[in-house]
């Protein structure tokens, strides 16, 4: 018997189930991303937002009171940054939450002083008088500091929203701009930012010509046969090799191989102290260029493959040689694809840490990798890098919990850079598609 046109089965059909699972996967992916961003922002907040200053007291006999900002909290302990003038060594205090009758208050007159020499100092505001600030420290002692010696000061518990935002903005800018201050607590990421950017730019200079030319040969000249396919598969698979292997390779080939040879040939006067025979900016950029080469080759080849055969034939039919067709027609049309490949490469390179630790990154470099005089780049020097800063602060620091906010703030900077670069790639890809629309009509 033939049934009507009515829907078969219940309300939930297989079609709906498929859609449900796809949507679910998307929701999970997006919420994961948002969660990460939230955690980064929240954990980094103490590093740039003016947090309240607390006064802790307890009924315990041995315990004195503490004035300061909490920098780390978990179930059992609170770490408090209690900046005291003249005593930068006694900075962090550990408070057990189990102390009898532990209380915290927000004193209205608490003042935060950013001293040029001693860093962050807390106290109770007394008065401001002829270019000097007077405040009592936690032990009741009266202190006077010249305003000239201060970066800034504010009453931490009496800030309006506008003041808080302005302080936060200053902190963010300082975090991005500073880097060589004496106080490691407030030290910014500027050298690491510069190191990352310079290294990535150098890498770009190495990887682009090489990748584009290789892709052009693979796509335009190589005869499509077993060998070409083997090479193409090989190139694609290079992208999947763990990056630390590139690091080891770079160390062996560039640092010890090329670098050692260069030292022997050109810098033999300074041996045994190595010039290029040790990890440095040049070798790090070359290693990353090698690492990102497959990305550029694949993207460029994809771009080349998308150019319709018909317009290439039209060019030949007008009497163009292969090189003329390539230079006048094919490569300009592939440029957006190359740009996309480049930006993907940059995004990948900016986040790479493992290989760099082998070939040139250090936790502290005394100078920037850029110089004012020729050749403007310290190619043989080691440099700082955002990704490595995160790793170093988070895992190598003796008291990692006290720098937690800093770790997250650095991570946020790196995250923003990589997301911005990827966003650029998306925009370029969009433009690329629009241009190809003309071709495919």
């Amino acid at each position, binding site marked *: 018997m033939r049934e009507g046109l009515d829907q078969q089965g219940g309300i939930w059909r297989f079609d709906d189930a498929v859609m449900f699972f796809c949507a679910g996967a998307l929701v999970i992916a997006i919420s994961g991303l948002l969660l990460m961003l939230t955690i980064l922002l929240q954990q980094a907040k103490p590093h740039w937002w003016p947090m309240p200053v607390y006064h802790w007291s307890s009924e315990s006999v041995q315990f004195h009171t503490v004035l300061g900002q909490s920098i780390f909290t978990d179930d059992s302990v609170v770490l408090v940054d209690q900046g005291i003038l003249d005593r930068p060594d006694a900075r962090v205090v550990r408070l057990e939450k189990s102390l009898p009758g532990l209380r915290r208050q927000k004193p209205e007159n608490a003042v935060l002083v950013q001293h040029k020499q001693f860093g962050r100092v807390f106290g109770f505001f007394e008065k401001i008088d002829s270019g000097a600030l007077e405040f009592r420290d936690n032990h009741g002692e009266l202190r006077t500091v010249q305003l000239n010696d201060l970066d800034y000061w504010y009453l931490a518990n009496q800030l309006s929203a506008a003041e808080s935002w302005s302080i936060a903005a200053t902190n963010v800018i300082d975090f991005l701009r500073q880097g060589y201050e004496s106080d490691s607590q407030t030290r910014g990421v500027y050298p690491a930012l510069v190191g990352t950017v310079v290294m990535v730019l150098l890498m770009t200079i190495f990887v682009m010509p090489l990748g584009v030319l290789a892709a052009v040969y693979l796509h335009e000249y190589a005869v499509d046969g077993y060998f070409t396919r083997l090479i193409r598969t090989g190139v694609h698979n290079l992208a999947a090799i763990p990056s630390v292997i590139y690091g080891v390779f770079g160390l062996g080939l560039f640092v010890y191989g090329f670098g050692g040879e260069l030292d022997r040939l050109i810098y033999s006067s300074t041996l045994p102290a190595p010039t290029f025979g040790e990890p440095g900016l040049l070798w790090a950029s070359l290693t990353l260029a090698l690492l990102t080469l497959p990305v550029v080759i694949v993207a460029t080849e994809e771009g080349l493959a998308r150019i319709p055969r018909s*317009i290439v034939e039209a060019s030949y039919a007008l009497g163009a040689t292969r090189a003329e067709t390539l230079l006048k027609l094919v490569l300009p049309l592939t440029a957006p694809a190359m740009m996309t490949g480049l930006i993907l490469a940059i995004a990948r390179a900016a986040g790479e840490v493992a290989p760099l630790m082998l070939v040139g990154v250090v936790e502290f470099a005394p100078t920037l990798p850029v110089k004012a005089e020729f050749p403007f780049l310290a190619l043989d020097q080691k440099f700082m890098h955002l990704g490595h800063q995160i790793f170093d602060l988070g895992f190598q620091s003796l008291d990692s919990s006290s720098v937690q906010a800093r770790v997250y703030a650095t991570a946020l900077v790196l995250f923003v850079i990589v997301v911005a670069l990827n966003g650029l790639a998306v925009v370029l890809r969009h433009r690329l598609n629009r241009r190809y629309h*003309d071709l495919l009509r």
Partner: protein
Amino acid sequence: MTAPIIEIKDLGLSYGPEQSVLSNVELSLERNAVTAIIGASGSGKSSLLRCLNRLVELTPKVRITGDIVFEGESIFGSRVDPTILRQRIGMVFQKPNPFPMSIFENVAYGLRLAGEKSPRILQEKVEQALIAAALWDEVRDRLDARAAVLSGGQQQRLVIARAIAVEPEVLLLDEPASSLDPISTLRIEELIYRLKQEFTIVVVTHNMQQAARVSDWAAFMHDGTIVEYDNTTNLFTNPREVRTEDYITGRFG
């Protein structure tokens, strides 16, 4: 009757060892005439056309036997530069394929390749080519517009202008109107009729009315070889071969 401009002598073509496309093709093309090549899909019309400007050599594993003589010279000679040959034998493809550039740059492309640098001469020659291709009046105010904004018929006339801008002697048209509407097709046909004053035209088509309308000579191809070649009137009204008659009366193909 003057000497033919192109003589095809026992031409054979294969893509790889198993795929023979053309065999024993013999054809002489008359100067300043329109020769139509008709035949079913897959009979090798387009491949034959692509042999004439050696564009077929871009396909991998291609093998050519026999010879094509253009103005008394073999085009497969060891000293022949195919790019110069292609400047003298222009080609228009089945689907309009303008470059993703401005209208002006499309037409100037071949001229620039030929080494023309003077902006004044470029301007002049682009204008002449567009006039000759009956497109000038429609695009004179927007030469800098992208070619993609033109309609299909306009695009096809644009690529004809692009081909004739370099002043070839022979123009190969590979089903130039097959992707166009009837009115655009008519304009292309009128254009072909006028262009034969200056060029020798070879047009591939599977539209027999079109072949009958535009051509002076017609060749019927089947299975990679020329079955019959005669002046158009004879071929369509009084074919010698049964296969030709079957095809033009629509009994196969």
